[in-house]
């Protein structure tokens, strides 16, 4: 609890919470939405391709989308940290928020695994394995749960 109080009192946390400008909380929240849509949207395309959507799209060149996924991830992470800091004492005690963090961590791990297994340098030569397909499906589910949890946080303050 002391830790949460300390985080909440930090400069950036106070600024996000209290600055009377649209560049504070509203902009950070909006950037979080952009980060989310790039992270989830781009990795969803990569998962859909693994699952057979757009079967003629070669796999290997899609590797170049991973940096885009990570840009979305970092934007979400930095803005998410700021939003958490602004309300650390509330969010830190919330089961739904902590569950969301775990779900996002799981999603991140699955993205790494999909990159390694589905989009390796020899991706086009080997058929997509069952495990990779299961991972792709799991990622779509995990992102749906993560968005649901995140969105519902707005209703349980």
């Amino acid at each position, binding site marked *: 609890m002391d830790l949460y109080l300390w985080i909440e009192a930090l400069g950036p946390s106070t600024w996000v919470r209290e600055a009377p400008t649209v560049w504070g909380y509203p902009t950070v929240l909006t950037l979080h939405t*952009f980060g989310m849509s790039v992270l989830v949207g781009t990795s969803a395309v990569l998962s*859909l391709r693994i699952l057979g959507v*757009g079967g003629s799209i070669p796999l290997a*060149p899609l590797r170049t989308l991973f940096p885009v996924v990570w840009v979305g991830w970092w934007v979400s992470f930095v803005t998410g940290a700021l939003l958490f800091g602004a309300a650390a004492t509330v969010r830190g005690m919330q089961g739904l928020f902590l569950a969301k963090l775990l779900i996002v961590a799981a999603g991140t791990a699955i993205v790494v695994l999909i990159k390694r297994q589905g989009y390796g340098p020899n991706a086009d030569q080997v058929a997509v394995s069952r495990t990779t397909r299961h991972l792709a499906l799991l990622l779509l589910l995990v992102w749906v749960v993560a968005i649901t949890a995140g969105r519902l946080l707005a209703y349980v303050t």
Partner: protein
Amino acid sequence: MPVLNTPHLHLLMNHVPTVGTVIGLGLLLLALMRRSDHLMRASLELFFLVALASLPVYLTGLAAQEAISGLPDVSADAITAHHNGVLLAFAFVELTGALAWLALWQFRRLARPAAWMSPAILLLATVTVVLMAGAATVGGEIRHPEIRPDGGVLAPAAWVTVDAVREFVISRAWTWPTAEVLHFIGLSLLFGVLLVVNLRVLGGLKAVSYASLHKLLPWAMLGFGVNLVTGMLFVIASPEQYMTSDPFYWKVAFLMVAGVDLLYLTVFERLWGLRAGDNATLLDKAIAVSAVAAWIGVIYSGRMLPFLGNAF
């Protein structure tokens, strides 16, 4: 003082869904009789654009309702009947546009759309014309006592009413949050797919042909469909939150640009011909930039709506 206010815009635009669908239907019939794919595509493109333009027609209508309710000579019964009629007509004009888009996409992928497509679109467009004509007639009666029948308002029976939709959204605690969740899932899918396709035009993913990425477009359309339905639930349930908010109008304007760009991505020849390794022309790249920028504008003004507008 703005030159155009929202009731004026509604008066300017409100003939587009009716007249546009009638012209589209005429073109489609002509296309079937003459067995002309060119005419068929023209009619499908028109249906898509009419569906797109119907969105601001509906929304300016809501704003007009707020503005003119209570004025002398304005019939409150006619407003209610008009809105109820428009609800179903709007659903059908959007369905027609969505199916027309799918047929255009199939023209690309399969050389021609599935056999059931043209009869289905013909049927949907016909129903749309009937429903729109009914709704439009009552719309005229709002401000024109001279065309009202003696017994008051001539209103077609409403299968779905605005009050029923409002009741569905507001009286159940879970409807609004669930629709918000779906709206965010839809926006991620839509933005992700269109980002990837437009990145190809801009020169990322150059090792992939445009035609193969074109296969992904229906997933963007699916995301858009989810967001259109959930977004309309918000607006119908709580119009005053949106109609008095400037960012909401920016959002609709950005949507119009994004919709036209999506049609361009779907049907135009030059993009379709981009093989692996090919560079898009500067004009196509500019259009891709405008598409991504328009979606950023849509998401920005939607998410910032509670903060920039005066609505909440």
